[in-house]
């Protein structure tokens, strides 16, 4: 694995506008430690383009709050991680970003969410259009019960994308680092693949429609460490082209892959009947993991709680 990874890291280092790790971390890739040897150095905020701007965003289901007053900016071509214990509203929050919450009839979103400066919940915004631009990969791999080829071609077909479908499919599968494994069995059913391959197929399906942002809701939680490693490598590739937001309950994963990390925690009301998530700290991943500003963050990332 380390050879392949090293090559990727070099590519990444050479890529313009991308000053991620210099390869030393990959060379030491065999060691298992809580923290990577080298963090992705989050760039200075001033030079970054904002993809999302959340301004005291709150979400409730049937009047019961799930997340309260989240304010954060998410930047282009970065991996932004949302971490925190179960029930802190990570998934709820990420599902706001492409209006998947609209599918839950009782969900209500308040506050402001700007996407490239436009109000994502504005009256004229069409959620279907939003989801074309902001794709999503889910916790459990959910390929369609169709062939590998048809899975990737599904999005381009329903959106009426122009171009040679074979080329579109190959490009997407290559983009998801899956082409070499499946090129000889494109017509076989996607359910014959391993869980990790299925998840990469879901990523291929997502990038086939050429989105701007990819949201990943615990994409590796159902996968073994080797498959997880492949997807993490893939994310490093993908962020050159896309902006990525990932929810993960795996702190090491957040430390390995993300440029910026938001830590959310569960809050209880006075009666302890209602609980909701609130953001505790949002900063460069390196800072969150090495020098957090809030003691609660430190307790969580060092494994004292949660």
């Amino acid at each position, binding site marked *: 694995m380390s050879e392949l990874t090293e090559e990727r890291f070099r590519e990444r280092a050479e890529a313009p506008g991308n000053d991620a790790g210099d390869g030393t971390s990959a060379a030491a890739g065999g060691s298992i430690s809580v923290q990577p040897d080298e963090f992705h150095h989050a760039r200075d905020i001033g030079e970054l383009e904002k993809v999302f701007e959340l301004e005291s965003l709150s979400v409730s289901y049937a009047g019961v709050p799930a997340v309260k007053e989240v304010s954060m900016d998410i930047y282009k071509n970065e991996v932004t991680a949302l971490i925190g214990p179960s029930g802190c509203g990570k998934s709820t929050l990420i599902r706001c970003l492409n209006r998947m919450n609209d599918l839950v009839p009782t969900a209500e979103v308040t506050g402001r969410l700007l996407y490239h400066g436009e109000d994502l919940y504005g009256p004229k915004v069409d959620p279907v259009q939003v989801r074309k631009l902001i794709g999503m990969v889910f916790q459990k791999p*959910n390929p369609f019960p169709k062939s590998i080829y048809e899975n990737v071609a599904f999005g381009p077909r329903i959106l009426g994308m122009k171009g040679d479908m074979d080329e579109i499919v190959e490009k997407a599968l290559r983009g998801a680092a899956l082409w070499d494994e499946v090129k000889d069995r494109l017509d076989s059913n996607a359910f014959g693949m391993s869980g990790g391959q299925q998840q990469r197929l879901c990523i291929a399906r997502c990038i086939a429609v050429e989105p701007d942002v990819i949201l990943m809701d615990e994409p590796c939680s159902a996968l073994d460490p080797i498959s997880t490693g492949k997807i993490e490598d893939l994310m490093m590739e993908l962020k050159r082209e896309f902006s990525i937001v990932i929810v993960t309950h795996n702190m090491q994963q957040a430390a390995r892959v993300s440029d910026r990390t938001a830590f959310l925690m569960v809050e209880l009301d006075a009666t302890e009947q209602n609980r909701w998530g609130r953001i505790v700290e949002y900063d460069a991943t390196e800072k969150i993991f090495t020098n957090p500003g809030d003691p609660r963050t430190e307790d969580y990332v060092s494994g004292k709680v949660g």
Partner: protein
Amino acid sequence: MQASDIAASGPAAMKPRLEAASPRYGEKITIALLAACAAISVITTTAIVISLLVPSVEFFGDVPIKDFLFGTDWGPTFTPPTFGVLPIVVGTLSITLWSLVFAIPIGIASALYLSEYASRRVRRIVKPVLEVLAGVPTVAFGFFALVFITPQIQKFWPGFLGDEPGIFSALAGGLAIGLLIVPIIATVSEDAMSAVPNGLREGAYALGATKSKVAARVVLPAALSGVVAGIILAASRAIGETMVVLLAAGNTPNLTLNPTEPIQAMTAFIATTATGDIATGSITYKTVFAVAMLLFVMTLLMNVLSIRIVRRYREVYE
């Protein structure tokens, strides 16, 4: 072995008791009863096949099987009698075809609406109503066809389609049976669609699919085996239906696929011929069994075919 023996001989000599405390006759009786109940339907089916088979074999001793299956003149009660079964086979198939043409689109559309679009409240009201509709006695449907559907067809018949149907027509019968089987297709399909994992829907929505695309391109294909099962169930019901065809489509053997004409279905022939004054052992008596046997074989073939189709085309999801 007695419990006191164990206690007396101490722990070193203790032997655990492994035999059953009683012969457990109750358990054996339960199993026997359950097996007997399960056997009833198997025995019944076998008995029906045998009771159909014996007179049918005798019938084919009198009438060559070729004349029966491919003859186009049906008049077993006339003198001289004719035994070409094709007119009433085509009558049955015509009724089934028209009822399916009507019921498949409406049944699937209802299922898609209930599973993908309707609010939980609407679904809670509509589904039981559909199920009640499936339980309405068929003679009521037949009467409804005669006094309502047929006059409406005649009233709104577009002239360019030729002569309007008379009081009995395959179309009226087909529409009435169509109404009867819509609930079967709708409820069975809706169950299959509701069983499609939500993750598949979310995967499609996340690609920018509209609700109708999700319904048509994801849910319907994934539920296809259930939908086909519903259609087959409905088709078997249509083939076996008697009262509606008798009341709405008439009882005139007629080798035609033209829906405006009256026809005789196989079931209608059996019901009107197998009355009390039929002489046991007569050729008419044996004819009834031969037609019933053919009907049985037709539904059997259809079921076998449907199972193969479902296996071939279904989309398996975990």
